[in-house]
């Protein structure tokens, strides 16, 4: 009896392990990963070029008197040990990051570019720790995962070269980097919800957090007078934000139920009927576009949205692109 129970547990564990291996062994078209590669590279490039346009390269990444970077005297970063701190190092690191971003965007020596970017961008973060925000950490993680992926299998110099030498990239690539990026996005929202410590995010302070942030002159894009007019809406938005972030793990279920729509189950049926997966994605997009419109947070909303293609299966992206093309064609013929 006991042995039979043990055998059953062992069989179940073996089945789970098999399913886990099979999940990470799937293949699909590389479209989503390619979109993330290009989107993330363009966003990072725009940010680095802003630093250059504002003449802030030395200011941010060189120590005093040229700038206000921080170099730990006890434990200097490898870039300082090798090249010495100063304006030359600041410019060198910035230039290396820019070149890596350009290479990522066009997909030239993509893996090398991704690795170089992560290492160099981390050095920029060490030299200017207060300037290295959550979005920078996310970008390093995303680019780090892309380095292990076949995100250069389409729309890239690498793919073009491979075609020219008669060794084209495969039609399908490992799907695991997309799944991992998907999980990263979910974790980021969930963790962010867990770490919301201020009472303003909760009923005890009347869900006033977003109203407060939109009134903060350090972040608000517009004069805060308009916030008073829509303050009840900001409270609703605060509730939605908390539900969105703390409910992020449910997105994994929504997606699973969407993919296995032909299987039985009342929750699955309701989730698909109410299109909860699409509701979650639309909330996220609305959340970030709202931030971009009303707050000055730099690349944060655009960097986050650049990772959103991982929420879609490449076939969905292909269908979406075909739908847009047909609309454009119809519009042109009507015109």
């Amino acid at each position, binding site marked *: 009896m006991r042995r039979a129970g043990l055998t059953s547990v062992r069989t179940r564990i073996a089945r789970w*392990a098999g399913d886990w291996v099979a999940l990470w062994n799937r293949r699909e078209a590389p479209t989503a990963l390619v979109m993330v590669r290009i989107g993330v590279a363009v966003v990072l490039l725009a940010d680095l070029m802003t630093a250059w346009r504002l003449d802030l390269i030395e200011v941010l990444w060189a120590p005093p008197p040229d700038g206000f970077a921080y170099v730990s005297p006890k434990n200097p970063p490898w870039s300082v040990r090798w090249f010495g701190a100063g304006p030359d190092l600041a410019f060198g690191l910035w230039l290396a990051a820019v070149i890596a971003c350009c290479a990522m965007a066009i997909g030239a020596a993509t893996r090398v570019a991704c690795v170089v970017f992560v290492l160099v961008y981390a050095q920029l973060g060490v030299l200017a720790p207060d300037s290295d*925000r959550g979005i920078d950490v996310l970008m390093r993680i995303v680019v*780090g995962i892309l380095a292990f992926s076949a995100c250069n299998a389409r729309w890239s110099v690498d793919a073009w070269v491979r075609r020219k030498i008669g060794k084209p990239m495969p039609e399908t690539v490992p799907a695991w980097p997309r799944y991992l990026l998907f999980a990263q996005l979910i974790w980021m929202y969930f963790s962010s919800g867990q770490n919301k410590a201020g009472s303003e995010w909760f009923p005890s302070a009347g869900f006033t957090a977003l109203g407060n942030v939109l009134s903060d*002159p350090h972040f608000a894009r517009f004069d805060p007078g308009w916030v008073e007019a829509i303050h009840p809406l900001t409270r609703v938005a605060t509730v939605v934000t908390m539900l969105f972030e703390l409910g992020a793990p449910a997105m994994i279920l929504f997606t699973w139920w969407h993919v296995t729509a032909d299987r039985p189950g009342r929750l699955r049926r309701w989730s698909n009927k109410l299109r909860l997966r699409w509701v979650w994605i639309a909330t996220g997009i609305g959340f970030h576009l709202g931030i971009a419109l009303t707050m*000055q947070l730099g690349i944060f909303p655009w960097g986050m949205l650049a990772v959103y293609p991982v929420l879609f299966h490449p076939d969905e992206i292909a269908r979406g692109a075909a739908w847009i093309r047909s609309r454009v064609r119809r519009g042109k013929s009507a015109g």
Partner: protein
Amino acid sequence: VSRWWPSIRAALILLACMIGVIDGCPVPPHDQTRKYAPEWAPTILEIDRFRLGLLKPVRPIADLTLIRQKWSLFSGASLRRFQMRLEGKPRDGQWKTLFRAGDDDVAMYADMLHYRRIRGVWNPSGQRLRGGYDRFCKWMNTRVLADHPEFDQSRVVLERIQIGADGGYTPTGELLHERLLDRRSIR
């Protein structure tokens, strides 16, 4: 290897996910634990020590790439906030405001000061100043005095503001964290 690779990869991914969850575990800061839940503090500290011990082998990777899995986006959004001001003062004159955050009428250096990487240095985290605030203020004040020979002094200061219960804010006149530079001190 190719036969075993899918299994090895799946195991490595599971390990990476577990490390990420352990790193991102929402352990409250030690000072807050001692302040708000002193009876729980020893237990939480012990758990945290154990957590950090588990992470020790992968710490070099995190240090090299500067990645972590504990995310905090606007964790606090208090009603007691600040409004940063940058001011210059001619000899025997009054302070002249060059920049006031969120005020389009005094917006010298606004593009630079609102750039996210620069704001990250002068904008306090909650009620606490950032580590680079002093270095930033010294650099900024030096720049103001270099750009404006008419000023003898320059200062960065944070004015306390009170955000209203229904939005908007009221300046309180309380000036905090002033960092001042006199031209004579750089000569």
